[in-house]
């Protein structure tokens, strides 16, 4: 499961409370089920135990006591290693492929390369498709042969759908990079106060949070 790495990526922008993490997660992944607070704190506890995150401050400010968490160097390394490994190209790898891409787009400052993530994933998917197509076809005329054939077609078509999405993502990333290059060649009208990689995101945060 990618929850640990997603939390690490959410902490890259700076120390955060569990409360903020939950809302940042839900904004990054509007199509997924909102994160439960219990899961956030359980994940943070595991990250601290494993030395990937650390508690940097505890404040109460009149309300309940809240701990600020920060990512450690080991956590940063773990995140980049996760991004550098393509998601297992299973028939229904779709969600993890999206997760890695979204996280990479948000983690450029830590050295993540979304284009490399997309390209590595394309190769992993094509390799899996090649295995599926090159393995001995199931014997026709039996129920088990038919079932195997249909399961294989299901896997192939889902991999193909992922690959089409990856193509679109590459195209969008290129267009966005070209756009950034064009806009950054003239002095910016206002000083940007958020991190530059936020502009690479395919959807804007403000839209996501109002959904």
């Amino acid at each position, binding site marked *: 499961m990618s929850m640990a790495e997603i939390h690490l990526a959410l902490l890259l922008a700076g120390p955060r409370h569990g409360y903020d993490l939950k809302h940042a997660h839900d904004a990054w992944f509007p199509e997924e089920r909102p994160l439960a607070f219990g899961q956030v704190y359980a994940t943070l506890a595991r990250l601290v135990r494993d030395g990937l995150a650390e508690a940097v401050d505890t404040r109460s400010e009149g309300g309940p006591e809240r701990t600020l968490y920060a990512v450690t160097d080991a956590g940063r390394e773990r995140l980049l290693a996760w991004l550098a490994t393509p998601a297992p190209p299973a028939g229904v790898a779709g969600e993890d492929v999206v997760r890695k891409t979204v996280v990479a787009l948000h983690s450029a400052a830590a050295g993540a390369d979304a284009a490399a993530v997309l*390209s590595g994933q*394309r*190769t992993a*998917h*094509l*390799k899996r*498709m*090649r295995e599926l*197509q*090159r393995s001995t076809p199931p014997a026709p005329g039996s129920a088990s042969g038919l079932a195997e054939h249909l399961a294989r077609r299901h896997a*192939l078509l889902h*991999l*193909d759908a992922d*690959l*089409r999405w990856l*193509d679109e993502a*590459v195209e969008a990333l*290129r267009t966005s990079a070209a756009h950034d290059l064009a806009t950054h060649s003239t002095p910016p009208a206002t000083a940007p106060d958020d991190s530059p990689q936020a502009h690479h995101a395919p959807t804007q945060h403000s839209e996501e949070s109002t959904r």
Partner: protein
Amino acid sequence: MSTGPSPDQVPLLELDGVSHAYARTPALREVSLTVAPGEVVAVTGSSGSGKSTLLHVAAGLLRPQAGRVHLLGHDLAGVDATARAVLRRSEIGIVLQYVQLVPDLPVLDNVALPLTLNGSSLAAARTAAADALAEVGLTDAASAAPAELSGGQAQRAAVARALITSPRIVFADEPVASLDPVGGRQVLDLLRGVTARGAALVLITHDNTVAALADREVRLRQGSVEHEAVLR
């Protein structure tokens, strides 16, 4: 099983810094690519990415404005049009998306055509063509007119014709784009079969399932190689 590229193998095809433009629109920009004996290479990309121009350049149908093309040991810059046509007829197989069988000739004579053009007797060419049709499962269609064949059968006949000279390298441009999955699979299996005797197959395709049959993918974007990966 295919052998793939290794330093001691002489490539069948080598493109080095090839560029070409139509009017002022660049179609290929500094493309380099090698194809080794026994290898299946998929050249992929969206429409307009330069795939078909690459095939035309690699097969000696189009002279690029810059860069070098070595095909089967020949530097194509030093080979005149006549010699290039002979090379294509004798050592290269080409299969296109839309089958180009001669409508007035029966299927058998269509398949025999490369051999008769190369100077074989009609009888010898027809014997070889009958064997080639058997290979692609079309023995029964030998005396039919091309118009009587289904799309899949016509493409298999075109494959038989492309392979009848035992070419060392086969170029296929979207060979199954207009076929159903079963017919497409048959054509791809036939094309891939050339690697068993050490020939290479260059598959131009926009279809991921077709690309995934290759040993290597070369992906073009706006005329440049965007991504290259070994799939084996």
